[in-house]
């Protein structure tokens, strides 16, 4: 007979569905019962694997999981409705069979799930939580990453990540209810959400994990969540669109920035034909939409810089004039030595290596860049361009000493080889 095992299990199915299931379940159980919601999700996963491995994977595994979670939720509610208090929003709907099923069905409706995911995202960004806690919570609750997976992605210890998550969950549980989307603080909390998603994306794009797949997952999750924000009209602001644009425009280059072996590539060495044209197209459309208001944020300027890069056919044909101007505006908005460093590199491209070095040397608080390997690498590149191989090698050596992981180290070591080529 035909066992009907039609396909492989999608790698990310559980991760993807987990956030939605937790959102629906906390709607019913209340955020103080977050652990119960997570147990129900875990039970649904166990049930799914046990049934599927014998009977085959169903045509719509996502819907199968949702139904399993719903049934399990009904069991829990019937068994524990006298012993526990559930979500205050549910009022007395859970008390009788007449209203129990409809209330649970409503919680699993796609629109409810979307809104609850947003409320959860805003709740994870509670101002009393450190940014690293916010990001870990978002990844764990909304993106279904385990503590082990988060630790691997951020190259941090599992115990530290577990501590962050449990600290965050305590704050969530103590808040009794999820953030209300019509709250007066909506816009200021939205800014915190932006910041957390920006950090999440950057960990994928600039981060420390050497595995391209891990980085791409983080970038994709940040994009998914920022696009979820856009679906909710009050959150569909110019800043949200600018953030979404910059994520798309950067993500389009990720696979050429870090190759499959986890090696970093310089912008000039990247094969531009392999940049993801679909992401670029979407990013540019989002960038257009971000210009609809009179709000100008750092996200706008970063997106504009990324747009200049993707529009250029090559490094030499890049409009460095515009990029330097954009960095100037970014500095006026949010001064930072790293931005000054990037500006100096752009000046070097526009006016030549000597001008670039002069710009680097005029960074006022460049002492703060001293521990940053790419500051020394930037000096080395400009020295190298002027044919001063020895000086370049010395600066690369400093950068290598400061490198924070194997990937950076290998990248810088390959650059030292370029100094040798100059000598020969």
């Amino acid at each position, binding site marked *: 007979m*035909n066992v009907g095992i039609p396909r492989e299990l999608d790698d990310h199915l559980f991760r993807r569905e987990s956030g939605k299931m937790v959102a629906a379940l906390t709607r019913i159980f209340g955020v103080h019962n977050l652990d119960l919601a997570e147990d129900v999700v875990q039970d649904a996963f166990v049930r799914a694997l046990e049934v599927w491995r014998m009977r*085959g994977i169903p045509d719509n595994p996502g819907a199968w999981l949702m139904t399993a979670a719903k049934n399990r939720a009904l069991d829990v509610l019937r068994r524990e409705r006298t012993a526990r208090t559930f979500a205050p929003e549910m009022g007395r709907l859970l008390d009788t069979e007449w209203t129990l099923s409809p209330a649970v069905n409503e919680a699993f409706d796609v629109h409810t799930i979307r809104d609850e995911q947003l409320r959860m995202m805003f709740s994870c960004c509670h101002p009393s939580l450190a940014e690293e806690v916010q990001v870990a919570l978002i990844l764990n609750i909304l993106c279904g990453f*385990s503590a082990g997976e988060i630790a691997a992605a951020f190259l941090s210890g599992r115990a530290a990540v577990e501590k962050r998550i449990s600290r965050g969950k305590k704050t969530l549980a103590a808040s009794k209810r999820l953030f209300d989307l019509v709250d007066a603080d909506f816009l200021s909390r939205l800014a915190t959400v932006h910041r957390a998603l920006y950090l999440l994306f950057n960990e994928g794009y600039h981060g420390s994990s050497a595995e391209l797949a891990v980085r791409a997952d983080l970038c994709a999750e940040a994009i998914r969540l920022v696009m979820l924000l856009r679906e909710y009209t009050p959150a569909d602001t110019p800043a949200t669109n600018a953030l979404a644009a910059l994520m798309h425009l950067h993500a389009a280059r990720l696979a050429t920035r870090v190759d499959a072996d986890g090696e970093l590539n310089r912008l000039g060495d990247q094969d531009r034909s392999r940049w993801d044209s679909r992401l670029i197209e979407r990013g540019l459309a989002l960038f257009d939409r971000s210009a609809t208001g009179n709000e100008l944020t750092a996200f706008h300027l970063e997106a504009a810089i990324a747009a200049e890069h993707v529009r250029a056919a090559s490094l030499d044909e890049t409009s460095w004039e515009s990029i330097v101007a954009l960095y100037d505006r970014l500095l006026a908005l949010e001064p930072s030595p790293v931005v000054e460093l990037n500006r100096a590199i752009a000046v070097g491209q526009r006016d030549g290596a000597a001008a670039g070095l002069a710009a680097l040397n005029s960074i006022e608080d460049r002492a703060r860049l001293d521990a940053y390997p790419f500051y020394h690498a930037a000096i080395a590149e400009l020295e190298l361009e002027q044919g001063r191989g020895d000086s370049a090698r010395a600066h690369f050596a400093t950068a290598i000493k400061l490198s924070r992981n194997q990937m950076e180290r290998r990248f810088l070591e390959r650059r030292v080889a370029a100094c040798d080529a100059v000598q020969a």
Partner: protein
Amino acid sequence: MSEFIYLYRTSDADRRAAMSAESRQQSMQAWLEWMRGLEANGHIKNPGNPLGTEGRVVRGKAKTVTDGPFVEIKDLVLGYTVIEAKDIDQAVELANGCPMLAGEGSVEVRPVAPM
């Protein structure tokens, strides 16, 4: 060809470990491959079903009912599959590939008694 039943047994802890985020993908893949292999060689009579871990036991003349769950039990029956094999030796040999054996689990191979 004769019929045999595989009874999959394991402890609840082992069952949960196989479902953790880190190993579930691998565990699932191993099972799918194993079931596909049996199917391709015509050994599957009925893929069977997993069993829930909660339940009741009705015992004796007094019809005493004891409650599950049986989670403390070390060899919880997790499910069954009906197999077709030449003889018990072949059925046992086929069971060697069962992913259940990667942990602390076991496969009990029992012939379906012929008429």
